[in-house]
């Protein structure tokens, strides 16, 4: 049944488009994801990432274009497609009236899995999610990070080969995020294909082999984090703060330093291959920033370059 074009890819999207009335939430995007890859959609809120995820997840109808998951069209083979997936939605939808372990078991029943499999599997997943001692707790007694880990554990109950993660760490504190990243990284190592959306560049850099930068429903760029940075930004960035009053006025005096200048309301960014050298030039011109910082370029800079806006607003 899978044709030759889609056989090598677990997910294939061609000119995928979704309109809500006149508004194009997803506008003509195409991408392919080979098995085992960790593929990210990076973009700000409202870029169309979640809508794309819902179409891949077989719960939302596209307006036009084509989409296959494991060679199957989710609109014609919804249950089959969803049987292949593990889904971590943007908003947790655990059943708070059930206990932690029962949430996993009940979810596994949707896949027709027998209790003889589900009971030990639930314990195994609670272990993986570091929730073993919470097995009998009520869901509403869990912290945000624990709920998120439980949602991830739940998505793994059917041993999916493809895991969809919509903003997996949004709203979590840094420590909880690192625990989650570690768990996701282990899944990636075990060969699970991860599809994740995020508006955190550090998350994308940590977890994604390859990503697309999405803005206003369109793909702006595509490649590995390193490739995107290489193509769309310089090696280093010099960040200067002159105080919110002066940042824009001082920018005029900085012209000519580095490859490119980006004045932002709270700071001025100078893109250059050598940040220290650029800083020396700045002080040589008699300008003394309140703070200065030399750092490597990140995906944030790529996004800024491509869209003229920052990721988190």
């Amino acid at each position, binding site marked *: *049944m*899978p044709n030759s074009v889609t056989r090598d890819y677990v997910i294939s999207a061609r000119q995928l488009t979704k309109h809500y009335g006149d508004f194009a939430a997803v506008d003509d995007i195409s991408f392919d994801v080979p098995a085992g890859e960790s593929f990210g959609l990076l973009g700000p809120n409202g870029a169309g990432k979640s809508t794309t995820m819902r179409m891949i*997840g077989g*719960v*939302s*109808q596209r307006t036009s274009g084509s989409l296959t998951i*494991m*060679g*199957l069209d989710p609109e014609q*083979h*919804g*249950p*089959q497609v*969803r*049987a*292949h*997936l593990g*889904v971590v*939605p943007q*908003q947790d*939808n*655990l*059943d*708070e*009236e*059930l206990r932690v372990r*029962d949430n996993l078991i*009940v*979810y596994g*029943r*949707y*896949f*027709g*899995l*027998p209790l*003889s*499999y589900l009971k*030990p*599997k639930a314990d*195994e997943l609670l272990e993986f999610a570091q929730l073993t001692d919470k097995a009998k707790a009520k869901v509403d007694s869990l912290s945000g990070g624990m709920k998120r880990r439980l949602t991830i554990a*739940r998505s793994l*109950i*059917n*041993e999916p080969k493809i895991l969809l993660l919509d903003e997996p760490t949004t709203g979590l504190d840094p420590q909880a995020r690192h625990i989650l990243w570690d768990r996701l990284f282990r899944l990636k190592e075990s060969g699970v294909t991860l599809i994740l959306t995020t508006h955190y560049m550090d998350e994308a850099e940590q977890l994604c082999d390859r990503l697309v930068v999405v803005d206003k429903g369109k793909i702006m760029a595509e490649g590995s984090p390193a490739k995107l940075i290489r193509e769309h930004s310089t090696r280093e960035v010099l960040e200067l703060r002159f105080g919110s009053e002066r940042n824009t006025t001082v920018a005029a005096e900085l012209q000519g330093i580095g490859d490119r200048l980006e004045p932002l309301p709270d700071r001025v960014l100078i893109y250059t291959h050598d940040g220290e050298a650029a800083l020396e030039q700045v002080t040589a011109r008699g300008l003394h920033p309140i703070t200065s910082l030399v750092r490597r370029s990140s995906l944030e800079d790529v996004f800024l370059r491509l869209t003229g806006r920052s990721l988190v607003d």
Partner: protein
Amino acid sequence: MTNSPSPGAGVEPAATQKGPTNKTAIQPPTTTLRAHAPQVAADRAKRFGSWYYAEHALRVMNGYRWTLLAYSVGNPVMYLFAMGVGLATLVDQNSSDAFGGVSYLAFIAPALLASATIMTAATEFTYPVMDGFKWRRVYYGPHASPLGVHQIVNGYIIAISLRLILMSAIYFGIVAAFGASPSGWGWVAVPVAVLCGLSFGLPLMAYSASVQEDKGQFALVMRFLVTPMFLFSGTFFPLDTLPIYLQWIGWISPLWHGTQLGRMLTYGFPVPIWLAVIHVVYLVVLAVLGWRLARRTYARRLGK
């Protein structure tokens, strides 16, 4: 990909891997733990999905089973004592055959039975529906699984129907213990009461699924739909003792149709056969229309 359903495959964990290697390496259960293939999951969900969701809803109910049980016993005992024993003493003294020659207790017992299912349906098909779509969004979990939207709807209806059956059976048992169901057909009032609850509950389910934001609509339903229905459906006095301009409330009320059927069954209240058929058909039509409409509303809202 093979579309042929493979019956038997995946019955046991680790039994789904076909091929010669299957039987060679038997390892401890913790390491051989293996989910069946996605195609098996999809086939099973297609066949039994509604029951899987019902199982979920029943597990949730099981969490407060003692409350449910206490309510199912306490509610009829309370009503039957207050109305059927307390109030009935006065009523029966003053008008010995105002109720077709039966005691007031026998007269109101089937009405109370039917209204109990309606009251329960009125709560189970309002706030929990809103909870599924909006508050705790519990529908979106199964929606991402192999289950279809119609199976979520069916599964919830199955679970609530089971609850109504249990509740009505207990109710009827207590009615019978009070000696208020002299006819041998009295027990049929149990499925009729369940049907009555669904004929009101399922259209309500469709409505609840269309509510985007709770601005007190459900409280209004209770006050301006359920309460008048409870009072003016021939529950406490025959419908024809009401002025004609109020009797329409009874005619459109599923409670009246359910109550009349119940009376027919518990003490042989005379109902012409054509009217009995109308009672049944009316209840079935309401329930089926509500069910179809609920499936459509759910599909539209979840599939956005």
